[in-house]
């Protein structure tokens, strides 16, 4: 049998393929199955668990299954609007080539939203880096270059970065996590789907974008193996090359194309080229419509001649989209891309070109130089068999029972606060996110860092708002995967509630170790349990998600269990946002443990300020409320009356109340920039100084 280097196919899977074909697969077929049956494309080890997650609610317009989910935002001028949301990881590429890996992570997630017929309105990122204390370490380089990659890409395409978080933990030294979320805006009746429409037999398949090159070859299986199992140069070749300049133009051209198609009233399908390249995308778009496809590889626009057919077929060259559209619309669409937006002049040989057609016969046929190089049953190709039953076991108890160590030199809570605020876990993230454009598009109501969640008003002329936040604390994950996942849901939801929004949906990215290792797999299963429980408890659906396995170090130790969750919320009127900034001396500061109470108080208009208690420490939240007041030009502080915080481990809120809010009153807002607790007092400007500094060392 032909060998694909770095193949992620098992021997049993190979036998199955040979059996079904009745012959040995061709080289192209082998690469195609390697990609399509990879964990990354097929979710073969995770899908039966993911089915347990709740995916429905009255707010869901489109649940998981296509490139992105859609939630109901609200109505404006009689039109129903949806928020499109997608969430993915780009971990392995970012560990190997962090700038390009992280940048293409943004590029890929943006296309997932774009292809739904949506305008891309925001991104968010959840980053997990290793121990960065040594300036010369690779993990320090990863932490810096990945942020620069996200910044370079997001800024250039003109999409604001609205939310995110970052943690530094030695468990990520050899395997960072780059999770990215993208948001889009679409009118409900204008959603574009990623399956070939019912009448589309014989319709052309149009490939749009960058000329296919040899980059990103083997990317799907690359992310479905551990990094150390692979050869470094092959790894680098598997990373895609970003071109945000081309993407900027393609996005705008695609908005124009969708507008044109809507004017003509035609239904089309559109899908992003991601894992598995041309084959992955064209096979899925046709198979999910109940059709087959015939593609001529010679019609691809290429960056160089002589690329082997398997590279043309499964290479993951970035910045490409695929359309299935009626024959009489093709010329106009090509004209928009190639002439009006002059793609061929923007990047070498970039263009829109017909590469094949939808077929009634459910085969997937590829030709190259007049010869058939692939001819398989399209459903067999796109429906990977489930992985053999994997064993799931728990982590050893001694690891799970680890408890945090409280430094002994701390004399009082406020001295502890100062230490906490200057730790990498709790310090200001501003040096990082100020490298991201957070306000392009001119509709950012709460920029990143000003509150627990970012808020935008994406519909021009409408007060409707979208809030977004992410969470997933790896320190919890290192102890207990299930509780960490529950906490991730709780924290993401709390952050959205804290800005006055109504949470309507969740996304998840599950980053774990090797699914064939019972302990690693056990953590994944436990995390799904936790997500399911926490989401059902709140009546919230998951509308998009992603699983990333094989995140481990060279000795086979998995990263801390990392279920990373984002929460989307809506506001009927962005004029009613709540920020964490203290407002009024004399008002009570109330510790509230549940989001419903906060929601009611917001509705009643008695919340002057609110901050979610994340990481379990209300003192940090108090400090952040005072910092936010300073940022608004108000020198305010707090006199705290209680030290006996029965802090809920997950979530909880501090509310500056303008009336009765159910909870424990823990202090009062005072008209000095000081935090007072019993005999102890600290100056807010001093705290601010220590809070701002630590990350400046990494992001000067």
């Amino acid at each position: 049998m032909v060998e694909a280097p770095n193949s992620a196919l098992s021997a049993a899977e190979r036998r199955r393929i040979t059996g079904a074909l009745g012959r040995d697969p061709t080289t192209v077929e082998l690469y195609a199955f390697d990609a399509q049956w990879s964990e990354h494309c097929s979710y073969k080890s995770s899908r039966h668990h993911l089915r347990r997650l709740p995916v429905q609610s009255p707010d869901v317009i489109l649940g998981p299954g296509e490139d992105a989910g859609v939630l109901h935002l609200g109505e404006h001028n009689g039109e129903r609007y949806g928020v499109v949301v997608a969430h993915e990881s780009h971990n392995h590429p970012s560990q190997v080539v962090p700038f390009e890996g992280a940048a293409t992570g943004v590029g890929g997630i943006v296309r997932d939203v774009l292809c739904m017929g949506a305008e891309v309105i925001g991104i968010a990122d959840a980053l997990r880096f290793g121990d960065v204390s040594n300036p010369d370490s690779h993990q320090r380089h990863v932490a810096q270059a990945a942020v620069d990659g996200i910044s370079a890409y997001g800024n250039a395409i003109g999409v604001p970065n609205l939310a995110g978080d970052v943690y530094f933990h030695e468990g990520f030294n050899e395997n960072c996590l780059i999770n990215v979320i993208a948001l889009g805006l679409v009118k409900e009746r204008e959603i574009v789907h990623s399956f070939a429409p019912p009448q589309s037999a014989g319709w052309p398949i149009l490939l749009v974008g960058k000329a296919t090159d040899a980059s990103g070859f083997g990317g799907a299986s690359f992310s479905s193996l551990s990094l150390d199992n692979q050869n470094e140069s092959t790894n680098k070749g598997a990373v895609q090359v970003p071109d945000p300049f081309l993407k900027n133009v393609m996005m705008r051209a695609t908005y124009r194309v969708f507008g044109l198609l809507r004017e003509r009233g035609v239904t089309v399908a559109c899908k992003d080229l991601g894992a598995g390249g041309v084959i992955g995308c064209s096979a899925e778009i046709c198979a999910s419509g109940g059709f087959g496809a015939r593609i001529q590889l010679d019609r691809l626009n290429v960056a160089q001649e002589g690329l082997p057919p398997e590279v043309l077929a499964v290479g993951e060259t970035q910045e490409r989209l695929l359309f299935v559209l009626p024959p009489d619309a093709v010329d106009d669409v090509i004209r928009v891309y190639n002439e009006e937006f002059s793609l061929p002049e923007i990047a070498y040989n970039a263009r829109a070109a017909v590469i094949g057609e939808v077929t009634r016969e459910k085969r997937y046929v590829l030709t190259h130089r007049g010869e058939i190089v692939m001819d398989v049953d399209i459903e067999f190709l796109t429906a990977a068999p489930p992985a053999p039953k994997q064993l799931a076991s728990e982590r050893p108890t001694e690891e799970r029972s680890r408890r945090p160590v409280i430094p002994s030199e701390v004399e009082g809570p406020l001295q502890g606060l100062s230490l906490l605020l200057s730790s990498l876990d709790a310090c200001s993230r501003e040096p990082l996110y100020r490298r991201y454009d957070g306000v392009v598009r001119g509709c950012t109501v709460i920029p990143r860092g000003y509150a627990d969640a970012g808020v935008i008003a994406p519909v021009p002329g409408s007060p409707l708002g979208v809030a977004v936040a992410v969470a997933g604390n790896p320190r919890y994950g290192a102890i207990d995967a299930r509780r960490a996942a529950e906490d991730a849901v709780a924290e993401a939801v709390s952050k959205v509630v804290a800005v006055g929004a109504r949470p309507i949906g969740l996304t998840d990215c599950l980053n774990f170790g090797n699914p064939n290792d019972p302990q690693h797999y056990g953590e994944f299963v436990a995390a799904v349990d936790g997500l399911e429980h926490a989401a059902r408890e709140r009546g919230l659906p998951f509308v998009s998600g992603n699983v990333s396995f094989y995140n481990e170090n060279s000795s086979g130790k998995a990263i801390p269990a990392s279920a990373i969750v984002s929460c989307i919320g809506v506001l009927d009127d962005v004029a009613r946002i709540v920020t964490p900034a203290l407002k009024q001396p004399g008002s009570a500061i109330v510790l509230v443990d549940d989001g419903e109470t906060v929601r009611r108080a917001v509705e009643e208009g008695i919340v002057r300020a609110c901050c979610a208690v994340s990481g379990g420490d209300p003192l940090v939240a108090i400090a952040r409320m005072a910092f936010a007041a300073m940022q608004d030009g108000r020198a305010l502080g707090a006199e705290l009356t209680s030290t006996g915080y029965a802090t809920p481990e997950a979530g909880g809120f501090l509310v500056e109340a303008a009336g009765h809010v159910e909870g424990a009153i823990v202090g009062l807002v005072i008209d000095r920039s000081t935090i007072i607790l019993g005999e102890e007092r600290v100056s807010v400007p001093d705290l601010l100084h220590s809070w701002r500094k630590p990350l400046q060392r990494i992001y000067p």
Partner: protein
Amino acid sequence: MLVFPGTNSEDETLRLLRAYGAEAELVHWSRWQTLAQYHAYVLAGGFAYEDRIRAGAIAARDAMMEPVIDGASRGKLVLGVCNGAQILLEAGLVPGGSDGQATAAFTRNAPSGHFICTLVYVKLAVAPQRSAITASLEPGCVMPAWAAHAEGRLAAQSKAIGAIVDGEHVTFVYARADGIVDDAANPNGSALYCAGLVNREGNVLAIMPHPERVYPQHSPLFESFVKAVAAS
């Protein structure tokens, strides 16, 4: 409004111009031949031509700029924001020398050298009548705007800096919200705390931070610009 390949702020800029009553539209690069017919030009933010070589360097030499340079010499009003401002400097339209060559640049931020996105305030540093575009502003007014750039620091040789000062070209300076101008308010180390420059004749204005990104959208500068266009 000119849209170069790589421009990324065209929609919100257009929205604000229209909110003040301007009859404005986007003109993409493939339609550059139609530009001459317009009465005024706006260059929005972004990364035109990927900011290759230097921010604005390629766009300034693009065919798109020919009608703008020609129109500016005949008194048409031109406003450039952020990347648009960088393009105007690269094209030599502001601060403006005798031979149409660039005499100053908005260059790499100092000391960080990195892109920064941060809320700033800009203060009108000349008499409003110095430029038709600022004529409706209050003297010394302070306005919020978002700095979002990697190359926004005004730099020039000392002779050129002297000419910029003598010619009253610095229209806007970075300031605190209360109008105090100091180093702490200067986000990128810009010479003369400069946030915006105007040409000698006052019809071409380049401003680095984005007034159009403040939410809810509201900009006395854009309002004044639209009034000036209507009167021109």
